């Protein structure tokens, strides 16, 4: 049987979705009756594009710039289809009043959801402009050429987009499906257009919510215990209110914030209140490693996948291994920040949340307002890499500002608050069992994964820290598993390899000893680390080359090309045999089996005295579908490689029984310059005309596994538990 037809996915409710869905490249191709991307949710063109009588073009997206280059890519798409320069376009990003509700900017979905919508909306607008210009210039549509905001007829007569927009007024028409893309003329798509947000960031321009200064603005700090699960002991709030420069001490239940004209005064008052000490009212944290603790807690078992096949023959060679990851931190360099201002019984919040609409609904719940009284406007913050403190600090600012109606309040967390309170990426454990037939092919496979939830994003007042502190507190949100094919803890637990007699089981551990939520790539980092480490273990047992072994088990042509590209560019076949502290590693995954393909080859050497890894060379190949901005893709994959190097080799959130102990960069060290790779090359496989697949989370899993495989190659022993840290490497010599 072929790979596609025999494969089936198990949803929580049983066998429901054919594997064809997971193999199809993007949502916009799944159903021909639907409009592409989020255009299906917002079919009217003026939800996405407006042309003013002066010719200015405004494009709207419900997605947010997180430093991933979203703005530039979306402007390129619209400008390309509308035959203008990117500078002719104003892009409005996530704002609950102005832009479509596109949910959260997460899961490497922005290009599929919003990029596809804007591409098709722009093609529709181009068609309308062309038809209107033909009518106005008394010619046929095929005689019209659009160029830089003007439509030209065959004899040079012309009319501007602004004139057409003024005469024909409205783009309040539904998009038509199947409008073809532009074919003629210069193209912006596929060009390395420089990022539009970078110049301000290099010159001290106002670029972040942290940089906002509104007239009459107060500075605020929230006052909490040192970490998630702790609370402040009763303090002398009146004395704090009398400290120099303090405008107000705001208390709502246990929620406490200090407001001051000068930021330093707010910080000093916060420190004054913190001196009262803290306690942990709830149950103590486990004294054992979180990974062991999670395996001991009750779990809801969710089948992930099951592929039929003959039972494993009795002579088959069986390999088993267990892999694990500690809890990891997002670790944004800039602590979370928001500005809030109340007027007329409603509140406006400037926020770097990934989801303005869910935040609006959660704030409305917390503040007991109707959602139309809450406006959330996205302004960039420091990179978040998932659900960090952004939503919580927005609630903190909104509650603090309620005490001073009309006055804007800027509230930023301190470093130890971000480290202490951000939701973590869950600790995880994966057990794998595989069987090899006499021909060296895999004939059986079993994957089990234990994890807490990977989605604790707020959907109610109880999803925000402040919601648990007000009186009465909101009930805490209960986490749910994210269903496949995207998955949470089981994300990428389903190998792309064609393997018979295979199954996967997700032990979803609802009870989380520590606060957890979405960290970039969710379970994919762990599952790909495990699967791709295990593929090398099986390859070794089969006496096969790791790259050949992968290719033998892969039917997906694009996957094969990504692997071959990385292997060829690296010179895999000619590499020096590993040993004596030098080694090479390879790994591959297709993110979620739906998104980008990414293969990574790398070479390391290990210092015998310290156990430190020197990453000498990394070569990656990535296929994200049609590449709008190849340099943007390279930037994201380079970032994934370096970030995953840090996650995989040196990070672990520490705890004692009362609290989280990783309260700053000394207690949670991350990668610094002397340890970054000597070189990183990223080769973009551009699929012109193919659906966008997203890029931001494709590289984390493959990088982690490639490192583990290189260490095994260099030392002849394998590390299966992250972090792959120097002390543990040294012990293997």
């Amino acid at each position, binding site marked *: 049987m072929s790979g596609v037809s025999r494969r089936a996915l198990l949803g929580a409710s049983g066998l429901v979705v054919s594997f064809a869905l997971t193999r199809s490249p993007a949502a916009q191709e799944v159903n021909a009756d639907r409009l592409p991307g989020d255009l299906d949710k917002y079919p009217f063109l003026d939800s996405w594009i407006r042309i003013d009588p002066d010719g200015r073009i405004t494009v709207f997206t419900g997605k947010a710039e*997180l*430093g*991933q*280059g979203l703005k530039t890519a979306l402007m390129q798409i619209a400008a390309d289809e509308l035959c203008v320069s990117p500078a002719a376009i104003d892009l409005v990003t996530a704002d609950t009043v102005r832009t479509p509700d596109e949910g959260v900017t997460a899961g490497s979905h922005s290009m599929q959801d919003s990029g596809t919508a804007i591409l098709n909306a722009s093609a529709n607008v181009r068609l309308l402009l062309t038809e209107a210009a033909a009518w106005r210039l008394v010619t046929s549509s095929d005689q019209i050429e659009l160029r830089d905001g003007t439509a030209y007829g065959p004899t040079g007569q012309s009319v501007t987009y602004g004139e057409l927009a003024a005469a024909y007024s409205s783009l309040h028409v539904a998009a038509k499906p199947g409008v073809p893309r532009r074919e003629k003329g210069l193209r912006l798509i596929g060009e390395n257009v*420089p*990022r539009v*947000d*970078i110049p*301000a*960031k*290099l*010159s*001290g*321009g*106002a*670029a*972040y919510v*942290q*940089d906002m200064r509104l007239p009459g603005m107060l*500075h605020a700090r929230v006052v909490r215990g040192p970490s998630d699960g702790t609370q402040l002991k009763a303090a002398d709030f009146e004395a704090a209110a009398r400290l*120099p420069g303090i405008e107000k001490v705001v208390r709502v239940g246990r929620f406490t914030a200090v407001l001051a004209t*000068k*930021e*330093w*005064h707010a910080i000093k008052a916060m420190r004054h209140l913190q001196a009262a000490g803290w306690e942990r009212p709830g149950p103590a944290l486990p004294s054992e490693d979180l990974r062991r603790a999670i395996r001991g807690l009750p779990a809801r078992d969710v089948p992930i996948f099951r592929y039929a096949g003959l039972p494993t023959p009795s002579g088959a060679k069986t390999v088993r291994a267990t892999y694990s990851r500690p809890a990891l931190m*997002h*670790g*944004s*360099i*800039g*602590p979370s920040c928001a500005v809030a201002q109340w007027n007329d019984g409603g509140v406006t919040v400037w926020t770097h949340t990934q989801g303005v609409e869910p935040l609006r609904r959660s704030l409305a719940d917390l503040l007991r307002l109707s959602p139309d009284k809450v406006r959330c406007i996205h302004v*960039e913050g*420091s*990179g978040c890499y998932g659900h960090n403190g952004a939503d919580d600090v927005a609630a903190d600012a909104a509650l603090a500002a309620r005490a001073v109606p009309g006055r804007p309040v800027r509230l*930023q967390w301190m*470093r130890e608050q971000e480290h202490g309170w951000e939701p973590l990426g869950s600790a995880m454990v994966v057990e794998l069992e595989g069987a090899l037939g006499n021909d060296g092919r895999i004939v059986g496979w079993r994957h089990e994964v234990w994890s807490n939830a990977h989605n604790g994003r707020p959907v109610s007042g109880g999803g925000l820290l402040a919601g648990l502190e007000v009186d009465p507190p909101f009930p805490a949100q209960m986490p749910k598993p994210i269903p496949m094919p995207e998955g949470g803890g089981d994300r990428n637990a389903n190998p792309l390899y064609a393997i018979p007699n295979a199954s996967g089981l997700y032990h979803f551990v609802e009870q989380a000893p520590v606060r957890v939520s979405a960290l970039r790539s969710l379970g994919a980092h762990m599952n790909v680390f495990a699967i791709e480490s295990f593929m090398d273990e099986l390859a070794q047992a089969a006496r096969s080359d790791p790259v050949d072994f992968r290719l033998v088990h892969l039917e997906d042509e694009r996957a094969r090309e990504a692997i071959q590209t990385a292997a060829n560019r690296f010179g895999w076949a000619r590499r020096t045999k590993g040993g004596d502290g030098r080694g090479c590693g390879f790994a591959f995954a297709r993110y979620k089996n739906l998104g980008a393909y990414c293969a990574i080859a790398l070479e390391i050497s290990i210092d015998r005295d310290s156990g430190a890894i*020197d990453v000498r060379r990394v070569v990656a190949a990535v296929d994200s579908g049609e590449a709008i901005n190849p*340099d943007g893709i390279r*930037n*994201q994959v*380079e*970032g*994934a*490689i*370096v*970030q995953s190097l*840090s996650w995989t080799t040196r990070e672990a959130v520490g705890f004692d029984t009362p609290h989280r102990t990783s309260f*700053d*960069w*000394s207690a949670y060290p*991350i*990668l*610094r*310059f*002397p340890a*970054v*790779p*000597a*070189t*990183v090359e990223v080769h973009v496989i551009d699929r012109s005309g193919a659906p966008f697949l997203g890029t931001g989370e494709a590289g984390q899993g493959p990088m982690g596994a490639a490192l583990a495989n290189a260490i095994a190659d260099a030392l002849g022993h394998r590390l299966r538990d992250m972090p792959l840290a120097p002390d543990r490497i040294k012990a293997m010599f």
Partner: protein
Amino acid sequence: MITLTINGAGHQIDADPDTPLLYVLRDELALNGAKFGCGLGQCGACTVLIDDKPAFSCLAPIAALGNRKIRTIEGLGTSEKPGVVPEAFETEQAAQCGYCIAGMIMRTQALLERNNRPTEAELRQHLAPNLCRCGTHMRILRAARRAAAAMGGGVQESGT
């Protein structure tokens, strides 16, 4: 009132003497470049130059600064007329979220003004106090090499 010399100009500052320079730059003088990252001298997002040496502005109380020469990224140029180092960062597209980048530029500036022919190892060691979480390091290094060349020097291989 405390007088500070920032980007060549004197400023009268009305703030507590123990206020770290960072808050004065950001809140009193509306200079966005230096960022609050940790307040602990661990991440470098707040890096400025004090007497041409890189310094954590989050740790420097204004009372201790006297008439020392303070420079921020705003003193290196504008987005229309960037200085050599910011321009190299622009050319290399050396930013993702960019929150750390002003600090990276200031620390690079300090090195290259003193030595525009560092080795690769010296460059990496010099930048070690500054953290980037997006993983833009490879581009930051490329930008620093480009800036070194533009300043008449160059980064030398050091067999890292």
